[in-house]
């Protein structure tokens, strides 16, 4: 079976681990648990007529305490870039991480996910954030690991994007 390595990138506490758990195990916990190191999960995804084994590398979120290890991105087929709609600084961090990823490992397929859409009334974003990202040719989705909205779609869309490019 075809196997693809996918990394999760984003600032800390944006919900990367929660998205993986929702996708892999269909569960969600409200309690924030920081990720130390890397968490590896696997999931067989069905896209159109193909089965793909996705190996999900949930990298710890970047902040002053832990910097992203770009070597983990080597060998990856693509990545899911995550930000938290309630914290506008995480969008800036995502933009900065995408640029850094391109410098480190070259162009890789990725999907941008604005997470926590269940808290959309509390989002602290500029109204034109999607237009701003569209101008960068980013594929953007809204998701909620809590409700499950957009989660499967994000991983499957990324898988299709990876397969289309391979």
């Amino acid at each position, binding site marked *: 079976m075809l196997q693809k390595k996918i990394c999760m990138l984003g600032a800390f506490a944006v919900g990367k681990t929660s998205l993986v758990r929702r996708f892999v195990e269909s569960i969600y916990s409200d309690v*924030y648990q920081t990720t*130390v190191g*890397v968490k*590896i999960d696997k999931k067989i995804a069905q896209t159109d007529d193909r089965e793909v084994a996705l190996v999900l*590398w949930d990298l710890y979120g970047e902040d002053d*305490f832990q910097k992203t290890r770009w070597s983990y991105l080597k060998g990856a087929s693509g990545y899911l870039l995550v930000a938290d709609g309630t914290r506008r*600084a995480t969008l800036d961090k995502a933009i*900065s991480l*995408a640029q850094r990823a391109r410098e480190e490992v070259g162009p890789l397929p990725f999907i941008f996910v604005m997470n926590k859409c269940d808290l959309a009334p509390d989002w602290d974003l500029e109204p034109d954030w999607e237009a*701003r990202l569209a101008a960068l040719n980013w594929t953007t989705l809204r998701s909620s690991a809590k409700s499950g909205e957009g989660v499967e779609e994000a991983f499957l869309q990324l898988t299709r994007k990876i397969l289309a490019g391979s």
Partner: protein
Amino acid sequence: MTNFLQEVLTRLGYVFLEYQGNAEFRLLSPAPRWLSEVWIIPGAEGSIILVAEKSPFLADFLDKADVLLSSDDNATCQSEPWVERSPSGKEIPLQALALHVNGKRYLALQSPETQFKERAQLLQTARESLLEHEKLLREIQKKEILLHCIIHDLSQPLSVMSVTLDCLAEEPVSKKARRLLDLGKHASDQQMSMIRDILQVFSSDLKASIDAEKGADFTANLLQAARKVIDAFTPVFLAKTVSLRVDARADPSANWLVRGESTRLERIFSNLLENALRYAPSGTGVTIGLSREGEFLKAVVDDEGPGLPADLSPSQIFSLFSKGKESGGKAGLGLYFCQLTVERWGGAIGCESRAGGGSRFWFRLPVASQGEKTPAGGDAPREAATHDTMSIGKGPMRILLADDQEEIRILTTHQLERRGHHVVTVANGQKALEALQREAFDVILLDEQMPVMTGLETLKAIRKQEKKHAHAVVIALTGYNTDPDRERLLKAGFDGVIGKPFRMKALELMLRGAADTTQANLSAPEEEAAAPAPRSVADLLERVGGDEGLLRKMARTFLRDTPKRLAEIQKAIRAKRGEKLAFFAHALKGPVGIFGAEEAHQHCQDLQEHGRKLEFSEALRIYDALKEEIAELESNLRGYAGQKGSPRSGATRSGKRRVLTSKRKSR
């Protein structure tokens, strides 16, 4: 491996595998339970395991380790910790060590559960604190804005009520009507006092900034703040292919210290840069320029975007919730925050379209110097006395009043004209400037918050124009009537400040001060105009319009409620409940003030402050002193109220001249 070594390594939590070639590893000791759990292997010593198939992380790690081990016969290579989930869902932390020893390659694995948990706990705590901090900052900003909106909304109608009562008080009215007017006036004064208390107590951010501003080290480096923010924003700007830089002419060796606080200064730059980025087209640049302007340092943020929105004036752009029709901005709080902060620090902020295209947002802050004290000690407001002052006679004055509230304009004009002054009123700063072009005025009264052009902007324009002319006496009318606000306005260049709602007597005193060209400070009439504390029952009776029944009722209410309040104060001190102490001390302060018990009033004020600051060491001593004062007051009031238990009960008319409390002792 010897049995001894095997035993030691097993006890240390390691399991060793020897590389056999073809991606195969051989277990040198029985696999521990955690390894069997995560990989589901038989685990017997000598078992062959395809490690890369079992763990994608190890496959990646061994690839990288291989490069190092191939080049060095005795090299070791350690992985970062990682977590694998067992088929049963258990998360198992792992760490690997690859070694090259005597021509053979080994892989050592361990599950550092304890260290992993400790590290996770540490990171968890640090990140939760960061999240809390971010949340708190957002809350503070929201609260500050809300607070200022509330203060403004509460103050405006109150001003109208207060001035209306002043106007009515000057009409010939019956004794009964005068009593009612006095009561109304007293209530409106009380409400204004409560508004000020709200501002002081609930604006923790404001209080913190006031406290900080009083410190000698309340300084921030403008150039450093600009550079720090540029570093943070560069990736975001690059993503939009907009360049970002500090103007090369900013000399790093110059003094860039301003009065301010560095975190908030960075927030100001951040807000201005975000704003610039929003409008800057791809391929253009944004430049931060820094320069010195007299006693101020000025920062400009220049972009090459479309310029300022046509539907908004520069002053509207900084107002609360302001957004251009075509803008993609946020709620309109960022620039409002900048304005609040810069002006609080004694600076100014503005924006303009640039001649060559694009817009310029600028702000300026006072230069910080060694040994600088509070803003009150600044030079700017006192400079007024050294200027040539307009010729102001002691008779009627020509007064220009700019206020956007029509009721205030009508009522204030009515009162000033009754006193023989000539008054011209306008609704905003722009119109005030136009009026000043047409005729000269002795005094200019400017409301701080006006549409089109604020009081501060108008003042700046007036001061700019007057460079070649005589100094104009400009008095600020403000709803933000706290000491720091008065200091801020004086520092900005006003000759005097009067809080709204103001007593006409206070304004009259200030106008007299303006007429006296030797008087430099016009900002203290509030105290001078404050009604004197009643010293006797006769004073009190006069205050309530001669209504003895009402006065007796007030005395009985006081005697009924005071013991309960005192008990609550004592309880709060013993329980060390600062909030309650402040609340009950405040509740008692008003009534003792009414009865002219100055010493007791001061004790209440002190207790209120101690409660707010959660300082209890002196509180009991002050409480005892307060109790003593109250006992004296109660004794006198019992006599007047006709209650039993007082040697002075059954007061006669002569008793009306009795002193209510001891005179205030020197402090």
